[in-house]
């Protein structure tokens, strides 16, 4: 009777597949676990803000410009989200990519808002996020991973934002 043996190479391949599968499961727990890029940008007062400093919080990164109509429509909606969840550790970074600060200020002066606005005239943030269309928003989890992203904006998507924010806030850091 011939004894059936598994070749060593096959064992190695099986082991590697197992590792890959486990890694996939772990990663899928945090969605597309691409880490958010390192960002250091000034706010309205000139203070430098980094995305890393917000680890442990769920962050909505909104990349917007004053020349982009849907961006301007989204701005007050994101401020509303911020007011709803900030007590629970939610943060919004509205990153403006206007080349001229005056254009952004003209829009901001017409708004009442509490979310944090950062200025990025050179576009380092959209480059880091590999943005493909204006506007795009990213939901970054407590560990700094980009878990959800939305291109464009309509009011109809807001319930989806809320459920995603709730989901990320329920996770442990």
């Amino acid at each position: 009777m011939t004894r059936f043996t598994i070749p060593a190479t096959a064992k190695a391949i099986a082991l590697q597949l197992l590792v890959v599968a486990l890694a996939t499961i772990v990663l899928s727990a945090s969605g597309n676990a691409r880490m958010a890029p390192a960002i250091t940008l000034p706010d309205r007062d000139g203070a430098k803000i980094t995305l890393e400093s917000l680890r442990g919080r769920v962050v909505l990164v909104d990349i917007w410009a004053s020349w982009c109509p849907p961006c301007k429509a989204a701005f007050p909606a994101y401020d509303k989200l911020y007011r709803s969840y900030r007590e629970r550790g939610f943060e919004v970074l509205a990153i403006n990519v206007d080349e001229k600060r005056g254009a952004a200020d003209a829009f901001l002066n017409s708004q009442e808002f509490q979310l944090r606005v950062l200025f990025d005239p050179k576009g380092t943030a959209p480059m880091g996020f590999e943005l493909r269309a204006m506007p795009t928003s990213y939901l970054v989890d407590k560990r700094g991973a980009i878990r959800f992203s939305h291109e464009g904006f309509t009011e109809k998507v807001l319930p989806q934002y809320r459920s995603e924010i709730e989901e990320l806030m329920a996770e442990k850091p």
Partner: protein
Amino acid sequence: MAVSKGTALVGGALASLVAVAAVVMMDGARSHAQEPQSAQSLGLQFHTFVDSRGVTVLSPTIDLGKDFTDRTGLRVGFGVDAITAASDSCARCHEEGANNARVFVNASIVRKYGDTQVSVGGEYSHENFYQATTVSTSISRSLNQANTTVAGGYSFSWNRPQLHPDEIVENQASHSAYATLTQTLTKNTIVQLGYELGYISGYQSNPFLRTTVDGVKMVGVHPDTRIRHALTARLRQALPADTYLEADFRRYSDDWDVKANTWSVGLSKEFSPRVTLSGIYRRHGQAGAYFYEPFYTGSPQYYTADFRLFPFDSNLYTARGIFTPHDGLMMFPAGTALTVQYEFYQSTTKFEAGIFTLGVRMPLPHK
């Protein structure tokens, strides 16, 4: 829109409206079909056209662009052209002058499928001696992160001119297909290339303009088919100090041997987000149709008195101001823009016209 008809009257007869209205119809519906991306807005415009041959056109128009869902929008337009004319030709038959009013309505539906946009629309117009019905469709696709837009479209017009003073109704069918490529070259430069092919069949003469054949005044006779080609190249260039250059060129030709070069160049200066002033110069030069003669002898197959088929050059000077008051305009909301424009046109056919436009465009809430 009706101003075009009024200008036709300048030629000396109500019948010029026929050809003009054909153009109006074709372009009216098409302009709506081709501009589905215009922002949601309500526009009111009032045009006055006064020329050196006694024609006055007053034309109020209204247009509305509204998106009802994320993917579906509606564009509608309505206008009236009130025309008064006291030109020599009209006065021969109408001592009090000749008045006309054209009413038109158009609508198109725009639907987005990802980066592709499709529109279907139509227009109907009615006036003395002329009715026109147009259907049109267009498709465009945005590529390469919106740096490239490829668009194409087709429109068909069924036009029914009525002869005057007879009451015979003629038919004319007009097909038009176009394609454009719009390309962003840099963050300051954008260009567009276009080609349009037109085919018109049926009655294309002008029943109101008369030329001399063997010393006798006769209504023109034109061929009953016409194939038209238009190639265009356009440029928009941002310059330093919030200044913008626009340059357009069109090469036109058809199988009636009308060949034309039309170019324009303009500068706009944005003095603030509230005030933009523009100055534009346009030059048009064309060769006459192969059957054009100042007067005819013998038994020509075709003959014409239509000034649009003559050889001539023209100049157009445009001055435009767009004002967007910070807190809105009178009863209109913030974001409303007021357009004030004056144009002066002169051609080597000794024709001159002044065109004044006052327009208000107010934004509608973005959903």
